[in-house]
């Protein structure tokens, strides 16, 4: 019997991205294993969001490849990528402000997927008790933290195997940031792979197994969180403190 090669859940290899003439990503490569939380670190404008958007097919890549669970998803339509089990929580949350909490969840709902945890509104309300108390509130009338929770819950309704979280701790109260760390640990326990983009090193250290640092559209460092802690000069060179 042929030996099955161990594959990463998510594999980004050598992708490029342009906005008009300006090159935003240059030869970005990294991977995320099943059940692993990887932090994509970098300053504002380093290319973190664009990396995620490229993985989701929202920005087209002219080079390299993105594979998810063994098959290429590069430049596929976003909805196809999502249907394969890759969830995306955008920065600024992008809640449907006119829709209620329940309706927002309904938009994210997908069929059950083999090998991925199944989420229902009830199960999500256990994870995010606040949301359960405001099922019929329009998204526009929620606080930033509540919207962030809703945005994650909405994506989980698609029963993803892996999830991209774009700056989940940005612009929310410290107490909610703690809850967010707890949430990410809970997702990891459910077996999800998580790619997390962050400027906040402290938050990333709480929840991540590994770190990938990007600067000016290129990967400058990859290693475990512990290695990063042992080399403060790397942190000082690429991250705002």
């Amino acid at each position, binding site marked *: 019997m042929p030996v099955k090669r161990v594959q990463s859940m998510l594999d980004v290899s050598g992708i490029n991205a342009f906005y008009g003439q300006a090159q935003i990503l240059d030869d970005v490569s990294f991977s995320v294993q099943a059940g692993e939380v990887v932090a994509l670190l970098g300053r504002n404008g380093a290319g973190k969001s664009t990396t995620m958007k490229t993985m989701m097919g929202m920005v087209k890549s002219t080079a390299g490849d993105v594979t998810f669970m063994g098959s290429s998803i590069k430049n596929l339509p976003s*909805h196809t990528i*999502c249907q394969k089990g890759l969830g995306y929580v955008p920065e600024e949350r992008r809640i449907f402000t*006119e829709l209620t909490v329940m309706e927002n969840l309904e938009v994210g709902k997908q069929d059950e997927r083999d090998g991925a945890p199944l989420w229902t509104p009830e199960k999500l309300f256990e994870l995010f008790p606040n949301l359960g108390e405001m099922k019929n509130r329009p998204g526009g009338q929620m606080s930033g933290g509540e919207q962030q929770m809703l945005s994650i819950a909405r994506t989980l309704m698609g029963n993803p195997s892996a999830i991209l979280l774009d700056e989940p701790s940005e612009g929310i109260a410290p107490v909610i940031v703690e809850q967010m760390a707890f949430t990410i640990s809970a997702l990891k326990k459910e077996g999800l792979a998580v790619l997390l983009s962050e400027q906040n090193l402290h938050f990333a250290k709480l929840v991540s197994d590994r770190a990938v640092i990007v600067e000016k559209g290129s990967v400058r460092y990859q290693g475990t969180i512990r290695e990063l802690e042992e080399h403060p000069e790397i942190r000082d060179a690429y991250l705002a403190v």
Partner: protein
Amino acid sequence: MGFYLAQFLTGLASASSLFLVASGLSIIFGVTRIVNFAHGSFFMLGAYLAYTFVELMPHGILGFWGSVIAASLAVGLIGVLLEITLFRRIYKAPELFQLVATFGVVLVIQDLALWIWGAEDLFGPRAPGLEGAVRILGEPIPQYDLALIVLGPAVLLGVWLLFNKTRWGTLVRAATQDREMVSALGVNQSRLFTSVFFVGSTLAGLGGAVQLPREAASLLMDLNVIGEAFVVVVIGGMGSVPGAFLASVLIGELNAFGILVFPEITLVLAFLVMAVVLIVRPWGLLGRPDAVLRGASGPPEEPLRLFTPLSRNLILGLVGLLIVAPFIADEFTVVLLTDILIFTLFAVSLHFIMGPGGLVSFGHAAYFGLGAYGAALMVKYLGIGMISGLVVAPVVAGIGALIFGWFCVRLSGVYLAMLTLAAAQITWSIAFQWQDVTGGDDGILGIWPAEWASDKMTYYYLTLLLVFGGIYFIRRVVYAPFGFALRAGRDSALRVEAIGINLKTQQWMAFVLAGVFAGIAGGLYVYSKGSIFPDELAISRSVDGLVMVLLGGIQSLLGPIIGALSFTLLEDLVTRLDYWRIIFGGVILFIVVIAPEGLAGFARKLLPDRLTGKTEEEARS
């Protein structure tokens, strides 16, 4: 008392039919952001198809209503077909492209309808079982009107349930706000949009089909209804179905009672109400402030290009050719050249406000017509001479632009475009309905040039002088500090405001300037034709201007010149044919889909840089 009640019920019945059309338009706009002129064609097809189905099916109640439903569904399928083949290619295009493309569809469908059903109006049957009238307070009210009064709210309820109680409706409402996000959550946008088009077109078809017992199916139905439908959608708030209902009732009643009080200006009333609503509530009665629509913006505007020595010489050569043309061409060609020159100035003035100005105007014919009517009325009532007439024309157009522009620059995007359209419709309605003064449909005749300019050749030179003067002036303005501020404001309103430029005032002045030059074109036009009719102010004249700008391409100052030239030549060529609309519409669609950067842009791709020039940026580096 009974009479007023009867009038009120008539208003409600008309409102129902209007609501069906407008709600479909609103739904399609809400999700796809396409301002769909062809929606009026869907309405017309609904009426024609219902006529055909009623003929085919067994007569009686079932046959009639079966035909109505079959016609609506057939129109829905036509909408789906158009969405898949055309509309989905232009979702990300600028408003100009979308509008012109949908107008191309209007032309094609008009000729197809002419070919299938003929030019005669087709009178449908009365609805079986609802032929009679009921007496209410002594006034006879047609039973069918009562049925329509019930149908409107029933459809409103159905659409409301569809939008608020089904997964489909939830997805549609989500996509109205952020389509990219909906897609990232695993929803196939294309399929969603196609289904939205189906629902919207079906409603338009239903509106047309139920109108059949009240109004003969005719080839004029499409543009007649679309103006009112736009008004309703804008008053109600784009994308809001309950808003469309409210506005339909408002407009229906306004028409029913307005005709008693001001029979001369019923058409104006609707547009006046719309203008007032847009000023007080810029997003309509039940609309919500336009959320920033994500994932929908077009490519950024390219910088303008400077002339190269070669292209400058070519232009000088062209000018020279135009100067000697009357000596080598026959009189017919000279007249055609005069037309081309006049429309070139019209197109350049429209391009100025749309390209460098960044304000989408769907009603530029208003200023062309104001100029023409201003001069013609002065000649008719005051007997002024040609030179005074040519001075009056831009002044009147400029004053019109000053008034309308003040309102228009307060809005942006599609709402701005709709308000400019409303302004044009107001001027058209006045010219059309105020018969005592403007002569109405008969127009104003006998506006001839002065003795010394009555020769075709002399008038041609006069036109050439004024048109070149105008184009040169506009070009200078674009490269003057005022033009820089304008273009900067188009690209980033916030930054321009932040460095101390009052953008609204700049845009207002640009609007007036564009109006003034359109007015000069209008003045020249009326003296070259000797007459003026309301048609020169109608939607189709505004669209002509847009097609010229589109043909030439919006990102080039030469574009409108090339556009006006090719448009006028093409029009001259095809309008002699029986089915010219289908050819014309086909050409428009071809350009929108194949060469969206216009003829000038298309040529630029093929021609060497030596000829096409550099961008300002490239020239500086």
